[in-house]
């Protein structure tokens, strides 16, 4: 099941300011549960952002990223009405996707 995600994109000067909040446990594999058992590794590994279909951001994440990650970035050359899409894939192979249009 796709985890929920929030995205917002707004023009600031000549670039679109994009903010994304993802809902994910981002388990490091080193934390123990109440019974003292290790909680298995489970984190977002790959994040890809596209601007009108063209990849503008491609990142590999690790355990070092916090739970419910926040990602902010700026896309130069974007215009109001352009489409920004964000995809992630985690270590369990789960995927999630969200898109938005850039606000003026």
């Amino acid at each position, binding site marked *: 099941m796709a985890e929920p995600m*929030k*995205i*917002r994109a707004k023009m600031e000067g000549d670039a679109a300011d994009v903010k*994304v*909040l993802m809902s994910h446990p981002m388990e490091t594999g080193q*934390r*123990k*549960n109440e019974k003292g058992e290790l909680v298995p590794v489970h984190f977002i590994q790959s994040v890809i952002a596209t601007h009108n279909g063209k990849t503008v951001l491609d990142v590999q994440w690790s355990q070092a990223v916090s*739970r*419910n990650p926040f990602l902010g970035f700026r896309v130069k050359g974007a215009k109001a009405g352009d489409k920004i899409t964000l995809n992630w894939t985690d270590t369990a192979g789960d995927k999630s996707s969200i898109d938005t249009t850039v606000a003026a």
Partner: protein
Amino acid sequence: MTRAALTPRLLRNVKRPHRTLHLVGSTLWLALGMIVCHPTVAAGNEAALRVRGPAPLELVRSAAPASWQRQKVDSQGSSWPQTDWAGYNTLTTLATPPGNGAIHLITPTEGDAAKGRQLAFDRTRGGSCVACHVMGKDTPPQPGNVGPDLSLVGATRSDEWLFNYVYDPRTFNPGSIMPPWGAHRLFNVVEIRDIVAFLKTLKVVHTFGDTQENPDSRTPPKETRDNLDPTENPAMFALDRGKELFVRASVQGKSCASCHAAPESTMKSWAAQMPRYEARLNKVLGVEEFITRHARATTGAEFPMQEADNVALSVYLHHLSNGAVIRPDLSSPGARKAAASGRALMQRKLGQLNMACVDCHTREKHAFKWARGQYLVESRGTIAHFPTWRTSRGDIWDIRKRFQWCNVSVRANDLPPDAREYGDIEMALAEINKGEKISSPGIRH
């Protein structure tokens, strides 16, 4: 529940002038089918709810999760203190007698000043003396100013006075907010002798090079994050979840929306009128306990307090009231009695640290001062943002979890979330916060 089953019961409960309207509604439904009727019947439903009297509530069981003992871990796995502090005052029991003015030591003391210095600065024992006092030239970073500057105390006070004040300040000052370090066994007699020896070395005024180090001139923190920005506040995910739960059918086929079809218009100030005194239970119900008991009595769904679904519904219902001003109903004697009891509980000294809510959170005492790096605020302005996302804990806290945390912070056992005492305090706080605008879910460190 189907529309057909719901309608006759509603008609019995609606006053005569409305009856015609409802019959029209029903006829329309029969004639035009679900699409037309759904909103029509639902609107009638809200009217019916208003004349039906008190909301159905389950009145027998506890609203806390069945296995509740004390808070153990947050959703992110951060643990809560588990020490048993039942030997000290809690909100429910008075276990420690007030200071009786006894002098505990009358001979001059000899102690190890180096050890005393270490104990005074040790954060693991009582939060360290520096949490509240500036202590001479060696003061560690970010001292507090709840207590007086002790930089000159060695020049002005005797060994005997210092020993007895640290052992139990109530000997000299019954209203002191300083923990009775000896009487409450935080430090033993030998350790207090060492601390006194260190205090005796403090004889020079401490001047701060940095205004941000000096607690008297440090800038108070200001929350600048936009709590309603969904890309900024993770609690907004719970808002979506709450919205879903509101319309999700229970095993009995009913959802909250079966009776509350247009919550955006009909419940836009409901949460602002909570908590409410409930005569059937003779206690105050906040939004969260109301959800648990009302759902059990209506849809049959189980939403125990402080479990994720209950919190999500609470976030949703508070969010509907955003912008509405807090105005608890204090018209009944029961509500006024609860608020008075809450105000009294806020004055009660609790736990091993022997502190009351009012000690830190009223202008008259120590609000707007620093306890180490934490800035103390007064009670007004502290509830309108609940439930709130706590960045430091990675969790959404309802107001009752905040009370539980206050308890363990002063080293008193936390109570179950549906405790009567918490209800009374919630009512007292709602009265103090009357007129504040709801803005939920909040976000705080």
